[in-house]
């Protein structure tokens, strides 16, 4: 036996109510390896990591660091034990500079020169180049992540945990990140735990993979000895249709190669639309595109480059400062209450808790949101009608819940998404905006959502698909536009698209 593992857990368990988020989990992360932790959403990956850095206290079991048992009641203790984490959502102060952010959490006197030179050293050593005097607010997401990593590395951690690090990066940025991680691991014998649900990443980057399902470890294997199919089977527990960017699967409903789509009428048009932030900087800049009936138009781009603004515009949550938005040739004033609904725009929002559902209300009440007047007479809600409608939708969309009167917060994320989907699709829209429709869903639910989207498009609805997962866009979209900082950097048909080309455009290169 070699040296004890950097971190290992023994029978670690955590229950939330009746749900076992982690059930007797054993993992071992050794020095000098990149260890992948793969699992669907809700498999217990995040809970496990949170226990390692002290954000969640385990119910039972033990954690061993370098062979000795430890207790980790909070992140400060975790840091002193050499465990650091780069969260999916960064914890940086935008108004401060890079070095100031790196120094956050330090105690005693702050030495500007010492911190700045530390930042410089770390940048040099790991190839994480970033200007220590830049303001974080001015940095693109990829660089912000570097700042976060440097912040972690400066504490000299023996193990670094990354939670879904690539969801905010372009393909090039992801490659760079993994190169520097490789350096961290090989040069200094640190270990990296990489939490992800992306199979390709796991195969390309990690040394070993632990696969979790329903709160337990189902398999731990050496990456070189496995393949995507085996990983997916272990993750889901059955055979799944794998998403493949290279060959779009045949589509039910007979769409696919649609030579005639160019002649179809546009259902949604953006004409020189411009949105300014209250501070004055551009969020959408002269954006012009159209979406035709029955078409899926993919909007590719790194997160935060305007996708959310487009969705907010079409949800009636914001309005443009210049330009025109038209549905079926009729201009829509999105600032007027309910105008987007009347125009026939349905939206599956990026953050369903923000503008998709009301958590404190029941499933039925959430389902009736798009057309409450239709389910009432003279202002009195028709309870029987609502009940019937919700039972029907719960059946048709296979929403797992105790019934129409179940509070929305009792549903899992995937089922909440089904509620949104059911409501928006049955509203018989002309345009369906799907912003990150599969985020946070497990593989089974993703299959379901993508099938639904295809069917809706086949029925003649125009779908505007915004996704940070390039694979999803390449699989579903007929046509693709790429946006970067609120500007369109390219437009192409699916057949003319390639990962490399889109990747470059996502990084800001003009076509």
């Amino acid at each position, binding site marked *: 036996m070699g040296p004890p593992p950097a971190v290992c857990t023994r029978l670690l368990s955590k229950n939330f109510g009746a749900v076992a988020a982690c059930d007797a989990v054993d993992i071992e992360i050794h020095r000098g390896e990149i260890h992948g932790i793969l699992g669907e959403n809700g498999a217990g990956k995040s809970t496990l990591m949170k226990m390692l850095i002290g954000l969640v*206290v*385990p*119910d*039972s*079991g*033990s*954690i061993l660091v370098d062979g000795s*048992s430890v*207790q980790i*009641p909070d992140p400060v203790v975790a840091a002193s034990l050499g465990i650091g984490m780069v969260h999916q959502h960064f914890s940086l102060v935008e108004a401060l500079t890079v070095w100031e952010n790196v120094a956050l959490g330090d105690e005693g006197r702050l030495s500007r020169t010492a911190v700045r030179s530390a930042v410089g050293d770390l940048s040099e050593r790991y190839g994480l180049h970033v200007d220590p005097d830049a303001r974080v607010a001015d940095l693109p997401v990829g660089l912000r992540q570097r700042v976060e990593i440097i912040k972690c590395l400066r504490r000299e951690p023996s193990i670094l945990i990354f939670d879904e690090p690539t969801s905010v990066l372009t393909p090039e940025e992801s490659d760079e990140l993994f190169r520097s991680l490789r350096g961290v691991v090989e040069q200094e014998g640190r270990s990296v735990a990489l939490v992800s649900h992306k199979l390709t990443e796991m195969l390309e980057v990690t040394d070993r993979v632990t696969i979790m399902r329903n709160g337990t470890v189902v398999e731990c294997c050496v990456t070189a000895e496995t393949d995507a199919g085996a990983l997916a089977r272990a993750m889901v527990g059955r055979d799944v249709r794998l998403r493949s960017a290279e060959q779009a699967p045949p589509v039910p409903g007979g769409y696919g190669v649609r030579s005639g789509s160019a002649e179809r009428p546009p259902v949604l048009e953006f004409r020189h639309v411009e949105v300014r932030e209250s501070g004055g900087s551009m969020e959408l800049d002269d954006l012009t595109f159209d979406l035709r009936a029955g078409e899926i138009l993919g909007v590719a781009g790194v997160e935060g480059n305007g996708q959310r603004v487009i969705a907010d515009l079409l*949800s*009636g*949550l914001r309005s443009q400062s210049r330009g025109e938005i038209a549905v079926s040739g009729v201009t829509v004033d999105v600032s007027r*209450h*309910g*105008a*987007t*609904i*009347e125009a026939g725009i349905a*939206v599956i*929002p990026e953050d369903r808790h*923000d*503008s*998709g*559902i*009301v*958590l*404190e*209300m029941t499933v039925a*009440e959430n389902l009736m*949101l*798009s057309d*409450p*007047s239709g389910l*009432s007479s003279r*202002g*009195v*809600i028709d*309870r029987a009608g609502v009940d019937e409608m919700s039972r029907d939708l719960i059946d048709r969309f296979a929403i797992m819940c105790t019934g129409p009167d179940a509070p929305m917060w009792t549903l899992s994320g995937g089922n909440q998404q089904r509620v949104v989907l059911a409501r928006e699709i049955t509203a018989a829209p002309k345009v369906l905006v799907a912003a990150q429709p599969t985020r946070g869903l497990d593989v089974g639910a993703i299959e379901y959502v993508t099938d639904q989207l295809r069917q809706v498009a086949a029925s003649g609805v125009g779908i505007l698909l915004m996704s940070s997962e390039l694979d999803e866009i390449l699989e579903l979209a007929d046509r693709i536009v790429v946006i970067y900082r609120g500007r369109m950097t390219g437009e192409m048909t699916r057949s003319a698209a390639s990962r490399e080309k889109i990747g470059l455009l996502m990084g800001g290169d003009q076509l």
Partner: protein
Amino acid sequence: MISGLMVEAVGFEWTAVGEALLNGSVLKPGRWGGTIGVTIPLAMVAIGTIISTKAGLVNIGQEGQLVVGAAFATFASTRVPGPGPFVLLLILLAGVVGGSLWSGIAGGLRYWRKVPEVLTTLLLVAVASNLVGYGLKNPWLLLDPEAKVGNRNLVSEQLPPDTRMPRITLWGNEFPVSAFLAVALILLVGWMLNRTLWGYRLTVVGKNRRVAQRFGISESAQGMIAMLASGGFAGLAGALMLTGGDFANYRLVPGFSVNIGWIGLLVALVANNRASAVIPMAFVFAGLRTGSGFLASTGIERRVTDVVQGLMVLALLLPPAIMFIRERRRALASARSRV
């Protein structure tokens, strides 16, 4: 418990105090009537509070809205001629208008100028009582033209008997018929909040503004309506106090509101914003108030009941909070010992 200890601490038997409170509020013959009389405005204030809370607003100025409502009601009573029942109806309407106007100021500031309604409603309480105080000094406003100098110089004209709320006697308890009106209104509001589009939209606005906006529900319109309704109910409470006969002998006097607005707020809080719980909770708080009159016989300072009242609110609100903290502590401790 704690209140019992406290009473012991000031040197009295706490059972005697409890007995006095119960005697004064419900046990002694005829005491139900007085307690119901106090319950009515408390319940009205509380149901109004529930409406604004549903819309996600924090209206804490019921005391002021009630005073303005009462003042409007008084003004109407002295200026409108006509048959008694008709004037009575107008008085109540004037109360509603007064209360709505007062909360409407806060609502308007909230939606047009983004001033937090927590601040404005609270500050307007002070404005209200001072304005009404001014009104009570001027005969052309509220002051009784025949008020004599001395301690009666700041009162309004007494309502003539035919514009007072009729009182009835049931099983030896005398109370104003507005009790039935109050019950009907509470049932109506409870039904409207749960079963109508209005209540549904209000709840959506209160729970998630972004969803409301997305589905074309106007936050400002719904919020404004809720604010006006909330103040209207407080104003109605004021008018009912004026016409009901259980307060200030059918006159508007300084300090007329006797904290009914504040206590009504507590009733809504303790009722956990459920319309169905308003009536029993309002009755309990009313009982504390009427029972305190009997405390004098035990020789204890009346104000003790205020303390009891405060402790009661704490007693009702603390257990969930304490349970939460204890649960958390226990979880942490057991986790530590096992790991």
